[in-house]
């Protein structure tokens, strides 16, 4: 990683830690939402950007994680256990879902996840005895860890930030390991990868399951954040939102999800004048962006930096931009 990127990360992290102290509760809430959605976006980025598969179920996995956590904690299970359960359940479901869908060549996973999201929404809406149906689950408490309560906005934000950083580090480790190399092979040349003994099916399935479990973990934080769950929050629109997030941020780039989630969280605020036009604007943005710069914001930044580097005489040209 080159020095420019490292500096940017340090600055951004400092921002993320310091800025909330100057924000009103709603601002802190938005920042927390950003952190939580970024986790889900990182998961989807793995599936889409690294394994090249379209998943329209990430919203459903957030829902699964959220409801699981809410139900378990309200039944007295400690939050940490519920958190792990949410991730594990999402992983298992992702595996079961992906197993048949990824055995074929076409983009079947897209359709399967589309149908799955519908199914999850129906279950959440119909099974009132479990999920409260359309009335949802309310009064979800924020977790307490060894006496430290996260009920206040700032405290809960730092919990979200902490989890985000931990999961980012874990994902970074994975991408730097031989698995990351396998992902490159999977994406660039699956035929060659197969001939080198790389089980493309296994890796794709694993990536999808991990991506889905990150969705579940995101949901585990989402529940105590919003403190009220209803089925409509976890339908197709949420899945689209996450997909667009990953695309706009830059699919396949490590920091794409962070940028994409920021755009997604702030966009409703910017389009506040045009109430409810948020998804329309977002979709239009993506449609325009795709042919111009399919690599998203981070991809654009990369191109700009490369172009700057080639100009003679600038200070930047002295530094080599590594991949």
């Amino acid at each position, binding site marked *: 990683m080159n020095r420019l990127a490292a500096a940017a990360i340090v600055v951004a992290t400092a921002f993320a830690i310091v800025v909330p102290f100057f924000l009103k509760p709603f601002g802190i809430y938005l920042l927390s939402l950003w952190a939580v959605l970024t986790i889900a976006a990182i998961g989807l980025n793995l599936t889409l950007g690294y394994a090249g598969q379209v998943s*329209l179920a990430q919203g459903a996995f957030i829902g699964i994680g959220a409801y699981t956590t809410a139900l378990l904690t309200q039944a007295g299970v400690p939050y940490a256990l519920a958190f792990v359960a949410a991730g594990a359940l999402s992983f298992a479901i992702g595996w079961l879902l992906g197993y*048949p869908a990824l055995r074929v060549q076409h983009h*079947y996973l897209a*359709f399967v996840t589309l149908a799955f999201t519908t199914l999850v929404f*129906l279950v959440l809406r119909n099974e009132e005895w479990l999920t409260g149906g359309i009335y949802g689950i309310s009064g979800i408490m924020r977790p307490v860890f060894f006496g430290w309560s996260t009920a206040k906005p700032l405290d809960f934000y730092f919990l979200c930030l902490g989890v985000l950083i931990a999961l980012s580090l874990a994902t970074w480790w994975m991408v730097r390991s031989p698995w990351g190399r396998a992902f490159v092979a999977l994406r660039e040349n699956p035929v060659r990868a197969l001939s080198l003994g790389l089980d493309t099916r296994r890796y794709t399935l694993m990536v999808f399951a991990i991506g889905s479990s990150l969705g579940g973990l995101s949901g585990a934080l989402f529940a105590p954040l919003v403190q009220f769950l209803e089925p409509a929050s976890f339908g197709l629109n949420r899945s689209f939102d996450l997909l667009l997030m990953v695309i706009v941020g830059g699919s396949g780039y490590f920091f794409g999800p962070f940028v994409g989630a920021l755009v997604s969280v702030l966009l409703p605020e910017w389009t506040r004048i045009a109430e409810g036009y948020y998804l329309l604007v977002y979709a239009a943005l993506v449609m325009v962006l795709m*042919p111009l710069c399919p690599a998203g914001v981070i991809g654009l930044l990369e191109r700009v930096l490369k172009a700057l580097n080639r100009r003679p005489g600038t200070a930047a040209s002295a530094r080599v931009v590594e991949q």
Partner: protein
Amino acid sequence: MVHFFQLLLSGLATGAIYALVAVGFSLLWQTSQTINFAQGEFVMLPAFFVLMAMNAGAPLWLACLIAIALSILLLGVVFKFVIVDPMLRHGVLPLVISTIALALFMKEAVKDFYSSQAQPFPALVAEGDVNLLGAVVSAQSLVVLAVAIVTVVGLNLLLNKTRLGRSMQATAQNPTLARILGIPVRRMVLYTFLVNAVLVAIASILISPIYLAKFTNGETLGLAAFVAAIIGGFNQVRGAVLGGVIVGILDNLSAAYLSSQYRAAFPLLILIVVILLRPQGLFGRAQERTV
């Protein structure tokens, strides 16, 4: 038993509509590697063209023609040149994502600029029932079935009995060879887009009296079309027809005999079963191993 027959017939009618949509979808996939995720929204939209034309004073028959013309223009020509061609350069995945964004855009546009409420849509024939072999069947179902059958037969004639149609098929099966044979491949591909536009417009006009015109129609219709196309064998036009009919009938039967609360989940179950047992669909060839 009579009840079953009625369900079968109405299922056949909706299935015929699904078949039209699935055929268009398969055609696009076959000829230009276009997986049109917005196909459901493509079926949702023309109904609103009809309503807008009628609001401007046009009689139903004229409004339908206008809607079909607008569909050919927007969902055929504009779709191909503005969205598909620029994206195909980048690959199939970016195109899939663009069509997902397009679907969302269309849905939200109708919701924001027309109405989020379901709009009543005029039936093609007066409300009434027909006595068929002892069962009472709505005239509407019969008309829908008739129109759908005529369309499919017409399409079949076009594809198999005309030189144009055979050129389109050749383009679908082997574009390089088609080019060598002097077939104007790019024009043939354009024609498939236009054919799809006509198919979705007709499907829209047929199904909206039943579903009402609502911006969310695309979701169920799209899913039904995808499942139908996969059942038939993604690449096969005849398969799409059969697939559509199967989905329509099973959907109707399940709603009546099984829980209607989970009706919309039925396509998922069919989908999973087909993918598990016979991923190449009923008519598709077993895929050459590349996974």
